[in-house]
């Protein structure tokens, strides 16, 4: 089972864990991505390349399924405007093998961060905003 979603609506992480548990395997690993920012950031805007986002998440899920013995994968990536603490990303993987579930989940989360076509802008208290570009050096570049 592979379920990949790109949506503006919120999701229920507990419900996603339950869907993966119901597959009947011994382990469900998950990673929840949450809107976090420092200092005077008031909200976060996530922009996406709609025509590519779901396709790329599907490619990432297919790669993970080819590398680990997984019974299920769920990827949910939200776009739109977020308050701090809001859920943005859910990555989940089920397997009979605990180690496989954990490794696949880490791989999925890393691949989504590096390749899924979403971009993040921070809105600041003064009314300005800045993009988080994630350059190869991991430096953050105000624009």
């Amino acid at each position, binding site marked *: 089972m592979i379920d990949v979603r790109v949506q503006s609506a919120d999701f229920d992480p507990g419900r996603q864990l339950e869907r993966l548990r119901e597959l009947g395997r011994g382990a469900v690993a998950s990673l929840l991505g949450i809107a976090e920012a420092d200092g005077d950031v008031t909200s976060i805007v996530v922009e996406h390349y709609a025509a590519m986002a779901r396709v790329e998440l599907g490619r990432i899920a297919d790669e993970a399924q080819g590398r680990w013995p997984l019974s299920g994968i769920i990827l949910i990536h939200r776009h739109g405007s977020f308050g701090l603490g809001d859920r943005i990303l859910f990555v989940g993987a089920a397997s009979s093998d605990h180690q496989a579930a954990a490794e696949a989940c880490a791989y999925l989360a890393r691949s989504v961060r590096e390749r899924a076509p979403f971009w993040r802008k921070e809105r600041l208290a003064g009314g300005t905003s800045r993009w988080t570009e994630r*350059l190869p050096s991991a430096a953050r*570049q105000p624009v």
Partner: protein
Amino acid sequence: MAIVDLVYFGSLREALGRDGERIDPPSHVLTVEDLLNWMSERGEPYRSLLSDHGRIRAAVEREHAGPGDSFFGAQEVALFPPPGAT
């Protein structure tokens, strides 16, 4: 070369002030790197924004592409900074 729809995202879209544009590159512009060079030659703001290839990524027909990849026959090419929302 046929007409190509260029689409921009993130800080690049905002800095260019547009979501995309239709281009008609000459026949020697074959790869992503060629495209970035050709666009840079059009002057500002392209030159400043596109000439540092390390800051710009591309997707050809909704699939990530490297500097040496061809976009021959593609209808849609996307340019954007390195992605990552979380």
